[in-house]
């Protein structure tokens, strides 16, 4: 049951302090106000969220300064009339709500004779600020990245989309963490039902803590056993803004620099921000490379095994002989050799990620060059397998989205097994199985393989931005996940004049 805030300050203080007993990080102070300093107020805040102890430059400090110049009997009316309505301050009628308000990183203000608590924003929780993204590097375009503060992240999107149609719907996830979750979208562009669907999914669970957007992602995904992610992730505000312009919804979670974008398709995972900033020839070339890379990251070691173990007739004799010569002295069957090398590589990658910056790079060099060379010299693996594994790794790095690339890294082992035991038949069966799986997969009702499938729904326009990214003036329509009737993204006035 909620405890109402009354006009009696002492009672409010007692209730509040009872709720926050044994919380040394919460600072609680009684301060005298009024021109004769005869009235009392009370402020509470988390130690680091207020800018300075003497409150000189803070909003709280200025309010206190003002209250010290006013007659005692006018203080309550003044707060009611002038402070309640100013931006960001928020009155709470109960102790619990006031406590939740303070835990968002703001200062709580109680006044004797005033039956509410006011939340007054100040410095807030410490955060990193705007930094360059660690992943999703681009050659051309902004280098700003999302940070852990949801407010900062929404502002970074707003900075790019200065339209009143951009809406931010706030909700909370996590019973104990009370994490802010914002849904950012363009009201006039989103596909009908999409917003309702994500809101429904967000309301379908109650968890004690939602510490990162990854938790929300996993709890709202429909196909939980698929290795393929059904949300796109990004740390780039420009990528998020671009997605919003396509009628997609961006989900931001407090304390997470990773935004979720929905719906997501295979094609959107292969796109990068600078695909649209660079000229179409370059963008198309790199896009096609990424598609090829995503396929090879999954099948290359398997194909090597299928060809060298089962179908050697495909290769010219010279190459076959050199392959056989390279394997001479290696004690393991080719499949075991490839699995060993792949596991070693995955270990190196994992170690590189977990170690601090410079050490991580060193691990890459030590592992890749020294251990690889030593393994070849010791006849544990053949040089050709090192090349195959290295090329596969390169392909997986070329996939711009880490979660998406991981799906191929996992499936790679399935293909190694299939091709190692069933040859090219295993390869074809594996490709078929993955293809069937992908064709069944949907992200918020959108086929995962769109626009390669169902392109007719948008007059085959979406196919212009797939393997190839055609010149921008060909991409006049937004993709199919935009509301019908709002799909025009580009109008060329010059063309009209010529007509």
């Amino acid at each position, binding site marked *: 049951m909620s405890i109402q805030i009354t006009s009696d300050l002492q009672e409010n203080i007692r209730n509040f302090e009872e709720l926050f007993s044994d919380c040394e990080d919460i600072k609680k102070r009684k301060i005298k106000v009024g021109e004769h300093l005869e009235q009392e107020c009370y402020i509470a805040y988390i130690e680091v969220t207020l800018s300075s102890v003497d409150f000189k430059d803070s909003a709280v400090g200025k309010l206190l300064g003002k209250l010290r110049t006013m007659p005692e009997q006018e203080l309550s009316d003044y707060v009611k009339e002038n402070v309640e309505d100013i931006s960001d301050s928020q009155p709470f009628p109960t102790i619990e709500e006031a406590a939740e308000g303070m835990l968002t990183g703001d200062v709580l203000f109680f006044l004797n004779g005033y039956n509410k608590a006011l939340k007054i924003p100040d410095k807030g929780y410490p955060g990193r600020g705007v930094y360059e993204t660690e992943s999703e590097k681009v050659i051309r375009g902004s280098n700003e990245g999302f940070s852990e503060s949801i407010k900062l992240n929404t502002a970074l999107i707003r900075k790019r989309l200065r339209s009143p149609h951009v809406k931010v719907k706030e909700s909370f996830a996590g019973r104990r963490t009370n994490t802010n979750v914002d849904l950012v979208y363009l009201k006039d562009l989103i596909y009908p039902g999409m917003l309702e669907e994500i809101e429904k999914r967000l309301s379908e669970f109650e968890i004690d803590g939602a510490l990162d957007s990854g938790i929300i992602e996993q709890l709202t995904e429909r196909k939980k056993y698929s290795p393929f992610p059904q949300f796109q992730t990004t740390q780039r505000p420009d990528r998020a803004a671009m997605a919003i312009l396509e009628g997609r919804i961006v989900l931001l979670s407090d304390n997470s620099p990773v935004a979720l974008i929905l719906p997501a398709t295979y094609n959107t995972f292969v796109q990068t921000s600078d695909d649209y900033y660079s000229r179409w020839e370059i963008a198309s070339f790199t896009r096609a490379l990424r598609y090829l890379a995503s396929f090879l990251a999954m099948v290359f070691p398997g194909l090597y095994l299928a060809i060298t173990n089962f179908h050697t007739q495909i290769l*010219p004799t010279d190459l076959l002989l050199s392959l056989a010569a390279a394997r001479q002295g290696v004690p393991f069957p080719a499949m075991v050799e490839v699995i060993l090398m792949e596991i070693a590589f995955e270990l190196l990658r994992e170690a590189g990620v977990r170690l601090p910056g410079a050490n991580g790079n060193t691990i890459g060099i030590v592992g890749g060059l020294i251990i690889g060379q030593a393994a070849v010299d010791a006849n544990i693996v053949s040089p050709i397998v090192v090349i195959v594994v290295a090329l596969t790794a390169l392909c997986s790095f070329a996939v711009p989205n880490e979660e998406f690339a991981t799906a191929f890294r996992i499936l790679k082992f399935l293909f190694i097994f299939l091709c190692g035991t069933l040859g*090219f038949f295993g390869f*074809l069966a594996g490709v*078929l199985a993955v293809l069937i799986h992908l064709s069944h997969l949907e992200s918020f009702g*959108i086929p995962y393989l769109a626009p390669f*499938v169902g392109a007719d729904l948008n007059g085959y326009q979406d196919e212009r931005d797939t393997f190839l990214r055609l010149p921008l003036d060909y991409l006049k329509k937004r993709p199919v996940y935009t509301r019908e009737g709002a799909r025009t993204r580009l109008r060329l006035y010059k063309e009209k004049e010529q007509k």
Partner: protein
Amino acid sequence: MFADNWKISLRQIRRLFIMDIFGMSSLMLPGILSSMSGADGIFCLLLGMAGGMLLLFLMGANLKHIRKDYYSYMKETAGQLLGDIFMVFYFLYFVTLSGYVLYELTTLSLTWLLPDGSWLGISLILLLLGVYGSARGIEGRARIYEIIFWFLGIPLLFMLVLAVGDVKTAYFTPIASSDFMSFSRGSLSVLIFLLPLTALLFLKPFCRKPEKMVSCGKSAMVTVIFLNIIIYLILLGVFGRNTMGVLDRPVITLMGMVNLPGGFFTRQDVLMTAVWFFALFALLNTGIFQGALVMRELCQMHRNRLSLWVVAVIVFLVGKGFLEYSFLTEVFEIYQIWVVLPGMFFILLFLLFLHWARAERKTQKGGNG
């Protein structure tokens, strides 16, 4: 959301049927036609296509009257009993076809891809994939073939272009040398390979633009016949009539002989088997899907998965039968020529006649009244 509407586009239907009828026809027809009618096989293909056009015309005429689905239409027009009998006929056609395709696909895999593999293991993997492919209904299936269409089409066209260099035009003669019986049998064989097009009749509830389904079927058939003519001419020009008649799967043998520029890959037959692997799988998948669909409607089953598994077991047993008893292949051929082919035409004509007669009676009644 729009992806859940269980409707497919015309492009998806077209590609689905191209894959369905291309696989078996390109794999088997060249051998059959060359042994029967030599260079006249081209005319057999054209005549078979004319038969296919007639079949599509009859299907189109019936499709106009279908309001809900084909089964309801048959029951409304011919009565419950005949409707059920016709459905059993279609069910038998689809499951025996799937069984035969399973046998062929497994044999193809064992011959070209995994000579040391076991029939049981390969056929079970293929069946499981077939059931998995059909589990999400027509939309999921259509998406698979929509996406792999060009991945298979482009390498095939590329290889065919490369093979043109080895063609000896002298092998195209003599023309018009085959007797009437051989020519007719050749044309009938072509028509039999076009029969999977009848699945169109069951697709009306799943198509976004049902009024254009028949023209879509026509374009799929013309594309396949055109491809078959090219393949046949190339095979005839490369191997000659006599050699082609004794080759098991001449088109795959051809793929093994074509030299790629640069000479890195010495033989492409294994790689190019992928085209027929996927195409035959498409037909297997269609057979399982259609069989399960017919079964569900006939037995009023509500569980999609159960009907799929039942059909899969039947298909496996039929496929196993073809492997164990070679005479069944001949029985299947006789069944196709003497039961399936006339049956398909009879049902369509009979339904049209009944529909026409009923309409006439109504008009007369209206006139009298």
